[in-house]
């Protein structure tokens, strides 16, 4: 017999809302009955992807070396957050020129490539909002969606915490992650800023938000001028700054989620950790 449907999910199933949004920006919000948000999300996020592909002439994935091109090689790009857009791009443009004949990129490829990637990240924020809205339902307290704080924390590492009033944590995150990205850029002498040169590292680094985006466009992606003894560290640090910011955003999300559900964020996290520990003990005991 099916479990009774709780009031908390009266708005819709969270998984359905997320999957709809993943395939079509705004569709999850339409499913949840939030028509205006769904339409705006579709126009803005879908439009960003379309404009990005047009500006880049559909050539963004030509940045990938031919031997790296495969069925799943775009699964690690930020664009995968907007799966519908990515499928459309792959069907209409694929990896670009199949003959690998050298030809110039269009002048808009950098901004176009960035727009499509940002569309993927923006759609992930929409997925976060759709999932939480469906899950919280009638239990939701007044307050800004966790997705708002997640977007702020993406834009400037630490800003999500600052907006939540967690000043010390926000400052530490900002200093550590922006500092790590800056050090990575210095060690790699700016080589990390070019998506063409370091395709996947660039994708990870984009999670560091505006510091990464602005540095790329202000520097104009400097050319390689000589040997770079610490480039491995530089690329790793840049990518680490972005990936660690993704971990930070989970903390930001969890705090706001607990608040909006009327729970104590500290006790909530403690409960999660204890549950995790007892699961580990159970696994250890069963293995023994």
């Amino acid at each position, binding site marked *: 017999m099916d479990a009774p449907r709780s009031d908390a999910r009266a708005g819709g199933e969270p998984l359905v809302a997320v999957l709809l949004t993943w395939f079509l920006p705004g569709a999850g919000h339409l499913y949840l009955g939030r028509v205006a948000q769904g339409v705006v999300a579709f126009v803005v996020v879908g439009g960003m992807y379309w404009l990005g592909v047009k500006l880049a002439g559909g050539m963004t994935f030509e940045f990938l070396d031919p031997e790296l091109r495969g069925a799943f090689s775009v699964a690690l790009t930020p664009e995968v957050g907007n799966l519908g857009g990515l499928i459309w791009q792959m069907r209409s443009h694929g990896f670009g020129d199949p003959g690998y004949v050298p030809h110039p990129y269009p002048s808009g490829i950098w901004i176009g490539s960035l727009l499509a990637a940002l569309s993927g990240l923006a759609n992930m924020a929409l997925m976060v909002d759709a999932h939480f809205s469906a899950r919280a339902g009638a239990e939701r307290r007044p307050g800004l969606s966790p997705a708002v704080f997640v977007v702020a924390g993406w834009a400037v590492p630490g800003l999500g915490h600052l907006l939540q009033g*967690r000043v010390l944590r926000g400052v530490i995150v900002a200093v550590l*992650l922006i500092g790590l990205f800056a050090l990575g850029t210095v060690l790699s002498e700016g080589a990390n800023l070019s998506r063409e040169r370091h395709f996947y590292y660039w994708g990870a680094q984009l999670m560091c938000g505006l510091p990464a985006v602005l540095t790329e466009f202000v520097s104009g992606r400097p050319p390689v001028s000589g040997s770079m003894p610490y480039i491995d560290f530089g690329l790793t640090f840049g990518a680490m700054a972005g990936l660690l910011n993704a971990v930070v955003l989970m903390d930001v999300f969890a705090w706001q989620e607990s608040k909006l559900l009327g729970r104590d964020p500290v006790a909530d996290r403690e409960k999660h950790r204890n549950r995790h520990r007892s699961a580990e003990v159970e696994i250890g005991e069963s293995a023994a």
Partner: protein
Amino acid sequence: MIGYLAYVVLFAIGTLPIVVVTSFLSHADDRGAFRDLPRRAMVFVGSCIALAAALVLMGLYVG
């Protein structure tokens, strides 16, 4: 020698944000997160040393 020292310093710099951020994710309160830092740092550095030693030994004796 300077090169090896630089690698150790860069490793230490990379360790700091990893340990701090994961501690923040594990503890919603700042005090709990800071209290857990030394243990996390030791586990992380110890694990990296063990992994590096295993890789070096494999490089010497396997294949």
